């Protein structure tokens, strides 16, 4: 089957999840074509790496100026498909921008989307998607029944990224983005980069997350400090994101990010199913919670029944002491 991967990039580097999707596409295509569609300033810098991970052809829409990618990138892909260049499947990374492209494309082509995919397999020529439901306690497998191409929106860390053996340089096709009129009227006026030290949440080998048990927004400082000391990233439960303690970009879970670190430290998080689905694939889980019956302990390799406001400061001091 032919697979097109939406290859979001930043400053000429494809996002990690894009390389995961290309790797998956290679193993699922079964001799079919694996191609990538990229856009944005610096996109031509990403072409080489996309090739290394198996894209034999890269469509490059180039700089999109102050447009949001959704409407025009979707319009360009829809145009290609209508002109007869339809892949069997379109793989979309679960990111802020690419999910917009998937939504626009779905409505334009009148094709449904399957989202929150955590695994893919082929069965009798059909592509089957896997979805973690009910806190990851069950796996639902689904497929499209109508005409293709199917639009598959896939979560990060569902596949390991591996370069393709003997990959050559991909063919590059420059794509001109169509004008879409009113749908493209939202424009980016400025970009604000919030200070971010350490690795990205979904790429970190250590993730320290805080929940309601921290007691107050100020105490989230412990989470950030511990994450920094361990060269990790700071995460959060939905409860404290909903309460406005930390921005949505820190949220781990069903409606947030999926993480798969070497160690996940959950502090003051009880372990709602909505949270567990986003972190239960961590190699090691340490949980600190004062409620001995908290569900998080049922999946923790090390569970500490105690008050985070007592345990965390001591933990921070003792790690500082070792590193001094």
């Amino acid at each position, binding site marked *: 089957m032919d697979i097109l991967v939406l290859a979001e990039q930043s400053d000429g580097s494809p996002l990690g999840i894009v390389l995961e999707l290309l790797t998956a596409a290679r193993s699922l295509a079964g001799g079919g074509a694996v191609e990538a569609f990229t856009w944005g300033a610096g996109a031509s810098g990403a072409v080489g790496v996309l090739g290394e991970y198996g894209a034999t052809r890269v469509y490059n829409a180039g700089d999109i100026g102050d447009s949001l990618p*959704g409407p025009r990138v979707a319009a360009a892909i829809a145009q290609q498909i209508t002109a007869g260049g339809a892949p069997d499947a379109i793989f979309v990374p679960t*990111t802020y921008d690419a*999910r917009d492209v*998937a*939504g626009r494309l*779905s*409505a334009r082509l009148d094709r*449904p*989307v*399957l*989202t*929150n995919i955590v695994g893919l397999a082929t*069965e009798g020529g059909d592509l*089957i998607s896997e979805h973690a*439901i009910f806190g990851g*306690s*069950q*796996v*639902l497998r*689904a*497929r*499209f029944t*109508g005409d293709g191409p199917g639009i598959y*929106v896939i979560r990060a860390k569902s596949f390991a990224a591996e370069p393709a053996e003997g990959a050559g340089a991909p063919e590059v096709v420059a794509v001109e983005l169509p004008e879409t*009129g*009113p*749908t493209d*009227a*939202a*424009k*980016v006026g400025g*970009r*604000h980069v*919030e200070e*971010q030290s350490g690795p990205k949440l979904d790429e970190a*080998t250590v993730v320290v997350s805080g929940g309601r048990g921290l007691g107050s927004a100020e105490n989230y400082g412990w989470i950030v400090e511990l994450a920094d000391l361990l060269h990790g990233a700071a995460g959060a439960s939905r409860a404290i994101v*909903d309460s*406005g303690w930390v*921005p*949505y*970009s820190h949220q781990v879970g069903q*409606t947030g990010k999926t993480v798969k670190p070497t*160690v996940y430290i959950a502090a003051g998080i009880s372990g709602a199913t909505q949270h567990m689905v986003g972190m*239960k694939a961590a190699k090691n889980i*340490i949980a*600190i919670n004062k409620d001995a019956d908290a569900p998080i*302990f*049922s999946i*923790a*390799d*090390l*569970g*500490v029944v*105690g*008050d985070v406001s*007592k*345990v965390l400061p*001591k933990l921070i001091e*003792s*790690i500082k002491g070792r590193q001094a």
Partner: protein
Amino acid sequence: MNVAVCVKQIPDPAEPSALDASTHTLVREGKLVLDDSDSYGVEMALQLVETSGGGDVILISMAPNNETSGLRTALAMGAASAVLVSDPLLKGSDALGTAKVLAAAIRTLEPAPELVLTATESTDGYTGTTPVQLAELLGWPSVTFAKHVEVGDGSVKVQRQTEAGYDEVTSPLPAVVSVTAGVVEPRYPSFKGIMAARSKPVSEHTVSSLGLTQDEVGFSGARQAVVSVQAAEARSGGEIVIDEGEAHERIVAFLEQIKVL
């Protein structure tokens, strides 16, 4: 300014959820509640209308079974009226089918709203594409993952969450904006609000009264099928330590053992 807010009534997330054994859709029996995720959009809409000096907040919702209890919560917060699309044909609808219904319902509004707010995704289905599908069907611009919204001079200014921080995005109206949770503090309905909500108008539509066909919505419109539902690989608990002042040492030892320290 008139603002429409798309809201979903969902089974209480505090209750255990289940799949219907034959259809593999979420069981939606019993009382439905307003999705918490939507309370932020309702609150933001109320604030925007108050700031603009007039206008109404109108709720748009769909349900297979005439359910209004979640809508009453949002009406009690201060929304003026609601449009409920209720039809057994809607059972099994996916995100695109839902967007088609919401778009058709929004087109019935007189006067047309200048702004449509949604959550970024529902708590129960969390597909997360409906707001943008809706915008495309309406032919409107959209700004997703808004953490701050201001309206003035016929345009909406949004701080849009990004991986690195946020973008300032400006869009002319009408537009669809999806709002992330936690960005405003949803008000609690007052007693007066709850009483007033009982008599606020909820106009009902069906699939056919919106001019949609059976093929576009529900199971047939979704064009996707569940192949199987299986238990996932289980993960079990390990060592439990009760903190008596020294538990941090056990954590340090664990981190050493896995070579993180």
